Every structure is written in C-alpha cells, then in structure tokens.
C-alpha cells in the first residue's frame, strides 16, 4: 500500500520532469537548426554578410541580420536562442512547481530568476 503511494507521487514528479526535459529539447533543436542553417549559408556564399569579419553583437542588429538572411546574423541569432534556453528552463521549472503547488520551490525558482535578471545589471 505504502509502496503504491510512493509510486504515484514518483509518477507526478516524472510528468513534471518530462515537461522540463521537453522544453529543453525544443530550445536545443531550435537553436541547433538555426546555427546549422547559418553555417551552411556561410560556407555556400563564403561571406558573413557584414564588412570584413565583423558580426552583430546587439540583440536588435542580430535579429535584423537573421531576418535579412545574413549568415553571421543567422548564426548569432541561433547562439542567442541557445543562451536563452537555460533561462527559459528556470521559468518552466517555476511553472511546474506552481502546478505541483510546491510553494517553497516556486519561491526558490523566483529568487533565482530575480538574481539572474539582476546579474545583467551587476555585470560590467
């Protein structure tokens, strides 16, 4: 009986974990595809689409570059997606903890998220 109960609670955790795992898979596949498209285009055309070896480093320029199909713009956009994946994961975990009504961990996830956001201001 006790074993049955622990099995069902284990099942609930698995479901939540599968959801986090699934969201990571989407982030990874999406960013890998975009990077690959950019690479292939770079090798086909032999140029990055910018003057010399320069490439966009600001979010707005990266998005603009990706939508005008410049190889380096596409690659940088894919890298931005890759960098955003773990941050999205913190958000997804928080949502999972909310659905589990695990308020302690909703709090912990929120704290981590806030510290992460503030780190962008502390950084040089």
């Amino acid at each position, binding site marked *: 009986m006790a074993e049955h109960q622990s099995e069902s609670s*284990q099942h609930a*955790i*698995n479901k939540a*974990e*599968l959801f*986090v*795992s699934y969201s*990571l*898979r989407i*982030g*990874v596949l999406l*960013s*890998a595809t975009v*990077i*690959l498209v*950019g*690479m292939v285009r*770079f*090798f086909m055309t032999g140029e*990055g689409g910018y003057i010399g*070896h320069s*490439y966009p*480093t*600001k979010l707005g320029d990266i998005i603009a570059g990706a939508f005008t199909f410049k*190889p*380096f713009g596409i*690659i*940088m956009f*894919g*890298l*931005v997606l*890759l*960098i*955003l*994946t*773990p*941050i999205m*994961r*913190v958000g997804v*975990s928080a949502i999972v903890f909310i659905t589990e009504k695990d308020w*302690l*961990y909703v709090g*912990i*996830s929120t*704290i*981590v998220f806030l*510290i*992460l956001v*503030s*780190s*962008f201001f*502390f*950084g*040089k």
Partner: protein
Amino acid sequence: MEIVALKILLIAISAGIMGAILGLGGGIIMTPALTFLFGVDIQYAIGASLISVIATSSGAAIAYIRDGITNIRVGMFLEIATTVGAITGAIIGGIIAPNLLYSIFGVFLVYSAILMLKKVKQELPGEVTEHPMAKTLKLQGQYYDKALKKQISYKAANVYSGFGVMYGAGVISGLLGIGSGSFKVMAMDIFMKLPLKVSSATSNFMMGVTGAASAAIYLYRGDIDPVISAPVALGVLIGSTIGARLMQKLKSKTIRKLFIPVLMYIGMQMILQGLGVKL
C-alpha cells in the same frame, strides 16, 4: 575554412561527451584546444567555451532530466548560492587581482581530489544521515541506475557546507566566466554525499544558468565569434547528447576514476596561474 570548422566540430563533440559524463562544461578542453591548436585569441576562446558550457548543460539535461538522474530541487536550491556567488565574483573581479583567489581555490580543488581518492572504491554513498534542512527542502530522491540495474534512493547531508562551496563555485564563475563544474560536483559529492551520477547530472543542469548570465555579457562585448562558436555549439550539443546516454551505463567508480585526474589538473593549473606562471 571548412576543414578548420570540421576539426573544431570534432573536438567539440569529444568535449561535449566528457563534459556530460563528468558534470563539467567542457571549457577545460575547448579553451586550450582553441588557443593552442587553432591560435584563437583567448577572449574568443573564452566566449566559445561559455557557449560550450551552455550547450553541454542543455544537451545533457534533456536525457538526465527525462531519466530522473538530475535532482531539480537540489539544483534550483543551490542555484541561489551560485548566482549570488557569480555576482560577487563579477564585482570583486573589478576590485582586486584574482591571483590569490586562484591559488586558494586551486589548493581547495587539489585537496578535494585527495578526499575523492578515498572514495575511489565506493560505488554509492551508502547510509547517509539526512540534514534537517534537506528534509525541509525535500532534497532526497531516487533514480534508476542503468549500470547497477536497480533503483537507488538517496538523501542529502551537510546542506550548509554544500551551499557554501556552491557560493564559491559561483564566485569563480563570475571571476573567470566559466561553469566551474568541478566545484559543483564536489559540493554535492563530497559535502552533501549525493550519488556521483546525481551530482554530475545536477552540476550539468545548474551550469547552463550561470553560463547564460555571463554569456550575455560576453556576447554584447563581441567576444562570441560566430565562425568559432557555431561549430563549438553544434559539436558540443551532439557530444553531450551521446555523453548523457553513455554516463548512465558507466559505474560511478569508473566516472570517479576519470574525474580525479581532471580535478587534479584543474587545481594545479589554478595554483600555477595564481602564482603567475603562464601555461
């Protein structure tokens, strides 16, 4: 150009495999490989190794979380320590010369490698006295060990010292812009007495978050070069996917035997760097 990209891709695949198995970001392979083999400037090598950290973390976590090896609660809780530590590191990095810190952390790593040597014959932590805080935070867990072919239940000990070491790991990340996976694995394995596979998978899981925070800064600075970072990202994603499957079939004893020399190497390198010896 294509040949160089292909070579970087192959090295990145092996960095991804190793990083996923040991809970490290692969920076210890990527940074020296890029600087020594391909003559890449150190700033771009660090930028690419940050991409490697994030790619290892996300790539490996897909399998580790699905298979229940990662302890998400342990990871989330300890991320408070690593993120606050990372901010501290970024601040003090601008104030003091990090040389002394390098040496201190290096000595600490070598010391932990020696502590780990004592555990070399140990497959699982065995009976662990659960820390009262671990109970409140629900840090206990279980996973199916594919090498031992059985379900493993475990508890967490020494929550405070684990949290402290994690803070140190965060400081190093902030100072050096690395994932500092070696410190994370140690905090969980030696201090909190979690199974090595759980420690490695959870370290991997956590690394992406701190890596992402630093990567944004490096990207803005222009240190993330698309020609170098693209093959690194793709290779590491492939490698970490393979590594996360491979690790589950390995015995913890085997993983530990791979981990100790790596720990020694990183520790010695940090001590030398702190003493001003250029490698």
